[in-house]
């Protein structure tokens, strides 16, 4: 699909579960593509309103956290260069319990409407949290139903996909994005998610020290194994 559009007209849709997923997991990649002019839409299924972290020292409670996290996500999007943000209005921790058909239909409509060149979501088994797996499952089904192929990727944590064999994948299935030039934006987005990151002292150390905690690469799993052959393993588009 990348041939269809000029470099500047490319679109990326990311469908995640909570505010901060975009930053903590793949903030460098989103900042990189945004800086290249890719039009990024981020969908967050929930507002992260059932989180434990309430700031440190705490200044939020269960009733005020939703608005705070929404605001933090808007600021993180600005810092990463994400232009569109949508919420699906599902309560945090309940994504796996809502009607999967309806959720899939909602995401399918988004895919058809936005016509993205690349779609990112969670792997339905390796997502690491029930909400992650549920939104990943729905988005994967929606992507197939929309008749798409070859441009769906699952995000992965840290450098776990440096050795994909451990998860039943091969190197052909993995795209490794060099984010070393975009770590400042990633750090700025981490700091935008203040109530979630205040507990992590390293985030608030002087920039150089904080930046040294980030890996230089972020890793993505191709949803369609066949799409790997002959494709660039350093680029999602």
């Amino acid at each position, binding site marked *: 699909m990348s041939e269809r559009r000029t470099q500047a007209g490319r679109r990326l849709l990311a469908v995640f579960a909570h505010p901060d997923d975009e930053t903590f997991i793949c903030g460098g990649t989103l900042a990189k593509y945004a800086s290249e002019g890719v039009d990024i839409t981020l969908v967050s299924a929930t507002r992260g309103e*059932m989180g*434990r972290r309430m*700031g*440190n*020292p705490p*200044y939020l*409670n*269960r009733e005020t956290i939703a608005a705070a996290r929404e605001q933090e996500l808007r600021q993180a999007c600005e810092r990463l260069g994400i232009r569109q943000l949508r919420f699906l209005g599902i309560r945090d921790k309940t994504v796996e319990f809502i009607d999967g058909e309806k959720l899939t239909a909602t995401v399918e409509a988004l895919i058809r409407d936005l016509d993205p060149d690349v779609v990112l979501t969670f792997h339905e088994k390796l997502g690491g949290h029930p909400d992650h797996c549920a939104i990943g499952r729905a988005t994967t089904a929606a992507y197939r139903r929309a008749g798409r192929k070859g441009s769906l990727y699952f995000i992965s944590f840290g450098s776990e996909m440096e050795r994909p064999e451990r998860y039943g994948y091969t190197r052909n299935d993995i795209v490794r994005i060099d984010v070393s030039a975009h770590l400042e934006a990633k750090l700025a987005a981490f700091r935008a998610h203040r109530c979630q990151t205040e*507990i992590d002292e390293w985030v608030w150390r002087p920039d150089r020290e904080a930046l040294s905690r980030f890996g230089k690469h972020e890793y993505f799993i191709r949803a369609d194994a066949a799409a790997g052959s002959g494709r660039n393993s350093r680029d999602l588009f």
Partner: protein
Amino acid sequence: MMNIDRTSVEAELRKFVGADIYVHSEATSFVFVRNFKVRATDARIAGEGPYRVALRFDGHGWLRMEALTHYEADEAGRLLLAGYDDRGRMHVALHLGKEPFPE
């Protein structure tokens, strides 16, 4: 949220006694219940901090929570009680309101 002052919380709890109330209750890593509706017949606080709070309701029920450290009586007339650890993580919450909490 402020550190719990027992006398103030006692006074706030009394406002819900004899009323139909909506309750949000959670032990954060394990369970939450949002908007169960009961008629409170007693509402008490105990302890020297962290605190314990219990409700008796409908002539046959109890809700008891512990490890509460902070509270706020918000402008919507709701009483929000929560327990935080020393790094700002919330472990328990007990919210009382006379209207349903947003779902």
